[in-house]
C-alpha cells in the first residue's frame, strides 16, 4: 500500500474523525449486544425462583401426636421443582409446639442467620439453639443471644378437626426483616 494509514483519529480531518467514531462506536456496540445472551446466562437468576415448592398446608400429624409444651420437630415432605428436576422429598422441618394455653406455634427449623438446622435444648430459659454460630431463641421464637438478625421464622399453622396443618415457606437468610425467598 502506498498510502500510510493515519496514526490516530486526531490526525484525521474532522469529518472523517466523526465517521471513524461512529463506525467504531457501532462496532463496539454490536459486540456488546452480541455478548448479551452470554451475560444473560450469568445474571438471569436475579429475581427468579429456580427452586419452587407448593405452599399448600402440609399435614404434619394428629393433635394427639404433640405433647403440651414440648416442641417436636416434624420433617415437611412435599413436591419440589429444582431447576429442571421435579422431585418429592423433605423440604425442611418445622418445630411445632402445642402450648398449654391452647395456642399452636410452628417455626421453620432453618436458622434465619445462615441456614443451619435449629436444635431444641430442652431447657426452659433458651430452648432453641443453632449449633453453627450459637444463636439462641425463646420458646416463642424471639432472638435472644447470638448473631441472628431476627427471630425464628414463624410458619402459618392451623388445626382442622384432629389434624395439624403447616404451610412451609423459606425466607431470605441473614436479613433483619423477613422476606420470602
Amino acid at each position, binding site marked *: 500500500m502506498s498510502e500510510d494509514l493515519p496514526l490516530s483519529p486526531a490526525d484525521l480531518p474532522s469529518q472523517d474523525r466523526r465517521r471513524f467514531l461512529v463506525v467504531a462506536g457501532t462496532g463496539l456496540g454490536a459486540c456488546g449486544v452480541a455478548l448479551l445472551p452470554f451475560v444473560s446466562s*450469568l*445474571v438471569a*437468576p*436475579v*429475581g*427468579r*425462583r*429456580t*427452586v419452587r415448592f407448593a405452599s399448600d398446608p402440609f399435614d404434619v400429624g394428629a393433635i*394427639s*401426636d404433640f*405433647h403440651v409444651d*414440648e*416442641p*417436636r*420437630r416434624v*420433617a*415437611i415432605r412435599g413436591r419440589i421443582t*429444582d*431447576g*429442571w*428436576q421435579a*422431585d418429592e*422429598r*423433605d*423440604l*425442611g*422441618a418445622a418445630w411445632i409446639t402445642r402450648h398449654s394455653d391452647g395456642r399452636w406455634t410452628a417455626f421453620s*427449623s432453618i436458622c434465619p*442467620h*445462615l*441456614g*443451619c*438446622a435449629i*436444635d*431444641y*435444648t*430442652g431447657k426452659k430459659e433458651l430452648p432453641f439453639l443453632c*449449633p*453453627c*454460630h450459637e444463636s439462641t431463641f425463646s420458646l416463642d421464637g424471639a432472638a435472644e*443471644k*447470638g*448473631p*441472628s*438478625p431476627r427471630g425464628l421464622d414463624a410458619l402459618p399453622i392451623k388445626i382442622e378437626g384432629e389434624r395439624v396443618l403447616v404451610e412451609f415457606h*423459606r425466607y*431470605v*437468610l*441473614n*436479613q*433483619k426483616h423477613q422476606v420470602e*425467598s
Partner: protein
Amino acid sequence: MSLASRLAQAEAFLTERTGYPWSLAAWKNRKLPGGQSWGHALGFGLAALLLLQMFSGLAMTLYYSPSTANAWASVVYFEQEVPFGTFVRALHYHGTNALIIVTGLHLLYVVLNAGYRRPREAAWWAGLLLIAVLMAAAMTGALLPWDDQGYWASRVEIGIMGTAPVVGNQVQQIALGGNDLGNTTLTRYFTAHAIVMPVLLAGIVWLHVSLVKLHPAGAFAPQRSVPTVYWPKQALRDAMFALFAVAVVFAIAARFPAPLEGPADPSGGYPARPIWYFRPLFELRRHFEGPTEPVATMLLPGLAGLFLASLPFLDRGQTWRQRAPFVGPVLLGAALAIFSTSASLQRDARDKAYQEDRAESRSRAERARLAAKSGVPPQGALYMLQNTPESHGAKIYADRCVGCHMVGGRGSDKPKGPDLGGWATHDWLTGVIAHPEAPEFFGHSRVGGMDPYEKLGPTKLDALAAFLSQLRKYPNTPAEKLPAAFKSEVELFQTEGCDSCHSLTPGEASGATNLSGYGSDAWLIGLFVAPSSDVYFGSDNEMPSYKDKLSERDMLDVIAYLNLIREKPVQSRTGAIEVAAP
C-alpha cells in the same frame, strides 16, 4: 555434528517459526543477584502442585456428573469402582491443603525479603490475585460432591455473600443461580471450578512468573550468597522442593482418603463447620454479633487484603526497625490465623454434642456408600438413603407404634407396651425377667401374671438372658434341636419353671408367650399378625393386629428399624420426641 550445534539448530528452528527467542542458555543463565536459596523454590513448588491439581481434577471430570441427584453418586462411583479413584480424589483434596500451606510460606518469604519493592509491585499484586482465585477455587470445589459438608459450608458462605453492601442480594442470587441452593447452583460452581478458575490460574500464573523473571531483584535484595545464575544450583533446589512437595501429597493421599459425608440433606441437622483454612474467619466472627457481622466477614479481611497490596508503598525502610510496623502485622496475622485455627479445632474436639453429631454423620455416610454399591435410583442418593428399609420402617414406627411404646424412656405419654429401647438384648431381658411388672416392661399392660424372678440371683439371670437373646438365630427350632452349647441353659429354663408357661416348642401355646425363635423375623411377623393369639399375648393383649394394615414388606422394614434401635436406642439429645430416620 556436536550436541551444541544440534541444539543451536533446534533453537534457531523454533525461534524462526514461533517468533519467540528459544534459548536453553538464556534459561540456564538467568541472573539471580541475590544468589540461590530454598525460599525461591517455593514458587516453583506451587506451580508443581497446581499441575497436580489440574491432572487429578481432569481425571475426576471424566466421571463427575454435576446435578443434585447424581453428583454424590458419581463421586462415590469414582472412588469405589474406578482404579485409583480414591487415591486420585485424595490427591486433589490434600493437594489443596498443600497449595494453601505452601502459598502461606511463599507469601511470608516474599514479605520478609521485601520482594515487592519497586519495580516488582505488579508481580506482587498478581500474586495476591492468585491467592483470591485459589480461595475461590477451593470454595467452589467443596460444593461439587453435594455432600452434607460441602452443601452446608456453601450455604453459610453464600449467606455471607448476601450481607455485602448494596450488591449483596444480587451477588448471592448470581452465585445461587436463583433463590436457593439447587441444580443451578451446582452447575455454576462446576463451571467456575473446572473451567473459569483453571483458565484464570493459568493466565495469572503466567503473568506473575513473567513479571518476576523480568525483575530478578527488587530495590531491596538481601544478599544470601554470591550472585549466581539459575542453573544448576537454583534449578536443583526448585526441582527438589517440587518433588518433595508432590511426594508428600502422594504419601498423605495414599494413607488418608478425602473425606466425604453423606448425601446433602437440605432439611437435616448436619453439624456444619467451615473447612480448616476458613476457621480463622469462623473464629473472628464469634466476636461480632448480629448487624456487626460484616465487619468480621468482609471489612477486616478486606482491610487485610488492602494492607498487603499496599506493602510495596508502605514498606520502604532499609533496617528491620524501619520495616517492623509493616512486617510485624503480617507475621502477627499469620500467628493469629494458626492459633485461632488450632483453638477452634480444640473447642470442637471437646464439644461432646458436636462429636456425637459428627459420629452420626459418619455412620450415615457409611450406610449411604454401602447402599450406593447396588446403584443409586434416578431421584438421587438422598432419596436412596431416605427410603432404605430402616428409614421406611422408622416412618411406619412413628405412625403406628409410638402411641403405645416408648424407646429409651421417650415416646408415648400413655404407654401400654414395653419400652423397646434395647429390646431383646441381654440387658433388656435381664430386666424383664427380674421385674416384668416394672413400668418399662409390662407394668402398663393388662398382660401380666409373671412373677418377678429377681430372686434367681445374678448368675442365673445372666445365663437365662444370654440364652434368650440368642434365640432369634434359631426360628422354628424346638428345644431338643438347639445347639449343644445351650444345653445347660435349656435345663435351667426347665428347672426354674419358665417352661411351665413359656414353651420352647414352635407353635405351642402353654399359657404365656411362646419363646421359640424369640426375636427372630418370623417371631415378630407372627406377633404383628396375631398378637392376641395364645402363642403370643392371649386374651389380655391390647396390641392391635397389623395383618391388614401392613404388608409383609412393611413389616420387614419395621423389623429392620427395630434391629437398628435395638443396638442404639433412639434418644434425641435435645430432648424432643423424635423418631430418628437415617
